[in-house]
C-alpha cells in the first residue's frame, strides 16, 4: 500500500495542464478530491495544473545542484522565520497564508506568478517580475524587508516558485483555476458582533482571542491574525474580500468550506477591523495615504475608517511593530519613459 502511494505521488512528476472538459485520469482525480472538500470545480476553459511535490523533486531528472536550490527555496517558504529579525518582523511564514506549501488551489498557489510575470501590477503601477512579486509579500505580509534581488536566498525562493510551474506554458491564455483567494459573494450586511462571536467559537482556540496566535519553542504554530506579529496594513489580506476568500476556502485549519459565505465575511470584517502595523506606504498622514492608495487598494479595507465598535480610526498611528523602519527601499517606482 505504501508502495502504491509512492507510485501515485511519482506519477505527478510531469505536471498536467488540461483544458476543456476531458481531463486525464490523474487530473480528474485531483479535481474530484478538491470538490469533495467543497471547493468549486474548474469552469470551462480554466487551466488546471498539478504542481509537483517534494517527493517528485527527489525523483526528477534535473541537476543535483538545482535540486539543492529548490529544496532551499522550499525550506525558506515553509520556515521563513529563519529570516526573523533581518527580513521578517512578524510571526508569519510564507506558508501561513499559502497553504499546502504554496500548492493549494484557492489558497493563492504561488506558481501562477512564475508564468504570468513580468506583468503589470495595479498595486504599484508598474511592471513586476517574479522577484518583485515575492518582495511584495515580504514588504507587506511579512511586515519585512525583501531579500536582495539576485541574492542566494532570493534565487532559491524563486526557483521553488518556478519549479512548481513545471510544464505550464508562459503567459497562458486561459485563466488559472483556483488562483488567488477567490471570494464568496458579498452578503448585503456585515456584522462585527457576529464576526466576533464566530471568531471566538471557531478560530480563537488556535489564533487566540486577542489575535496573537501561538508560538512554541520560538517557532510559529498558529500565526497572528492581527496585532504587531501579524501582516501590516498594506498586505492583500486586509482587503475584506481577500480575507473572506481565504477564510471560506481554508479555515478553520483542516475544515475548508465549513463556514457559510455570511459567516466567512462577518469573521473577515471582524478580523480586518483590528489593529496591525502601519502600511509601509504611509506618508505620515492617514488622510493623505488614503487619498493616494484608496482608489487602488484601501477602498477594499477598513484602513482610515472609524471602527464600527468604538469609533477608533484604524491605522492612525506610527506603530511599525517589531520592524525598526517604516518603508523598505524596495518600494520605488519604475518607469521606462
Amino acid at each position, binding site marked *: *500500500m*505504501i*508502495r502504491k*502511494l*509512492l507510485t501515485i*505521488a511519482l506519477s505527478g512528476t510531469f505536471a498536467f495542464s488540461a483544458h476543456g472538459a476531458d481531463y486525464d485520469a490523474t487530473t480528474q482525480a*485531483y479535481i474530484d*478530491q478538491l470538490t469533495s*472538500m467543497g471547493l468549486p470545480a474548474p469552469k470551462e476553459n480554466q487551466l488546471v495544473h498539478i504542481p509537483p*511535490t*517534494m*517527493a517528485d523533486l527527489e525523483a526528477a531528472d534535473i541537476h543535483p545542484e538545482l535540486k539543492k536550490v529548490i529544496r532551499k527555496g522550499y525550506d525558506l517558504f515553509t520556515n521563513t522565520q529563519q529570516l526573523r529579525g533581518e527580513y521578517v518582523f512578524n510571526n508569519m511564514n510564507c506558508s501561513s497564508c499559502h*497553504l*499546502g*506549501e504554496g*500548492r*493549494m488551489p484557492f489558497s493563492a498557489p504561488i506558481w501562477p506568478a512564475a508564468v504570468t510575470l513580468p506583468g503589470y501590477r495595479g498595486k504599484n503601477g508598474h511592471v513586476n517580475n517574479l522577484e518583485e512579486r515575492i518582495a511584495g509579500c515580504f514588504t507587506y505580509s511579512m511586515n519585512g524587508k525583501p531579500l536582495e534581488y539576485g541574492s542566494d536566498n532570493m534565487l532559491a525562493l524563486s526557483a521553488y516558485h518556478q519549479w512548481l510551474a513545471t510544464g505550464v506554458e508562459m503567459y497562458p491564455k486561459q485563466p488559472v483555476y483556483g488562483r488567488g483567494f477567490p471570494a464568496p459573494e458579498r452578503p448585503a450586511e456585515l456584522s462585527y458582533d457576529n464576526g466576533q462571536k464566530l471568531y*471566538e*467559537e*471557531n478560530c*480563537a*482556540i*488556535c489564533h*487566540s*482571542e486577542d489575535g*496573537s496566535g*501561538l508560538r*512554541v*519553542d520560538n*517557532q510559529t*504554530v*498558529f500565526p497572528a491574525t492581527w496585532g504587531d506579529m501579524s501582516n501590516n496594513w498594506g498586505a492583500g489580506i486586509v482587503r475584506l474580500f481577500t480575507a473572506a476568500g481565504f477564510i471560506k476556502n481554508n479555515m*478553520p*485549519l*483542516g*475544515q*475548508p468550506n465549513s463556514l457559510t459565505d455570511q459567516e466567512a465575511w462577518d469573521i473577515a470584517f471582524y478580523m480586518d477591523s483590528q489593529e496591525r502595523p502601519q502600511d509601509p506606504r504611509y506618508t505620515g498622514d492617514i488622510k493623505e495615504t488614503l487619498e493616494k492608495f484608496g482608489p487602488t487598494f484601501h477602498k477594499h479595507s477598513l484602513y482610515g475608517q472609524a471602527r464600527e465598535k468604538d469609533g477608533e480610526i484604524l491605522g492612525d498611528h506610527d506603530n511599525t511593530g517589531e520592524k525598526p523602519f517604516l518603508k523598505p527601499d524596495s518600494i520605488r517606482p519604475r518607469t521606462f519613459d
Partner: protein
Amino acid sequence: MKKLPVTLAALGLVTYAGMAVSAPAGDASRGKEVANLCVACHQPDGSGMNLEGGESWPGLAGMNAEYFAKQIRDIKQGTRLSPTMAPFASMLDDQKTADVAAYYSQLEPTAGKGGENADPATLKRGQQLAEQGDWSKYIVSCKSCHGPGNRGAGEAFPGIAGQHAGYIEAQLKAWKTGARKNDPQDLMGSIARRMSDDDIHAVAVWLASQKPGNN
C-alpha cells in the same frame, strides 16, 4: 493561546471554546498518592505500555496537565468512551483530577514503543504525514496542530511524539469510525477521517519512535 502557568489555567483564568472552566489548582505531591490507583496500567514511571494486538495503555509522563484533566472529565462524563478507564476516572473528583494531572505533568517523559520493527518505507510515509502532511488528500501535517516535534502546542493540542504506536493507532481509528469525538470543533476527526488504515499505521509507528516530551 499563550502557554500559561498550570495554576493560572487551572484556576479558570484562561478559557477557550470547548474547554471547561474553573477547575481547582493541582498539587503534585497529593497527586502522587492518587496515582497509586493508576500504576497497574500506566506504570510507576508513567510510561504506560504498548500492547501488541491488545489495548495499549498510553504513556502519561510529562503530559500537559490541562489536556490530562480534560480527558478525565470527558471520560467521566461519557463524552470519551473507554470501558477500561471509566471506572478509574469516576474515582476522581475535580481536586483529585487536578492533583494527579499535576503529578504526571512533572514526570520525565518516556519513550514510545511499537515502532521498532517498522520498515523504512512505512517510516518515511509516517514522517511525511507528521511533518508535511499529504495535501493531495487534505491531510494537514500533524505538526501544524501538535506543534514543533509533535510535542504539543498549548493545552488543547497534546504532545503525540513518543506515545505508543498501538495507542496512537487506536485513537486515530476511533476518530475515524466516530467512536471518539471529544475533540474541540471536530479538529482531529476531520483529519482522521481522511486517513487510510495504512497511513494511520505509518504515522503511529513513526511518531512512536520520536523524541517524547511536552513543549
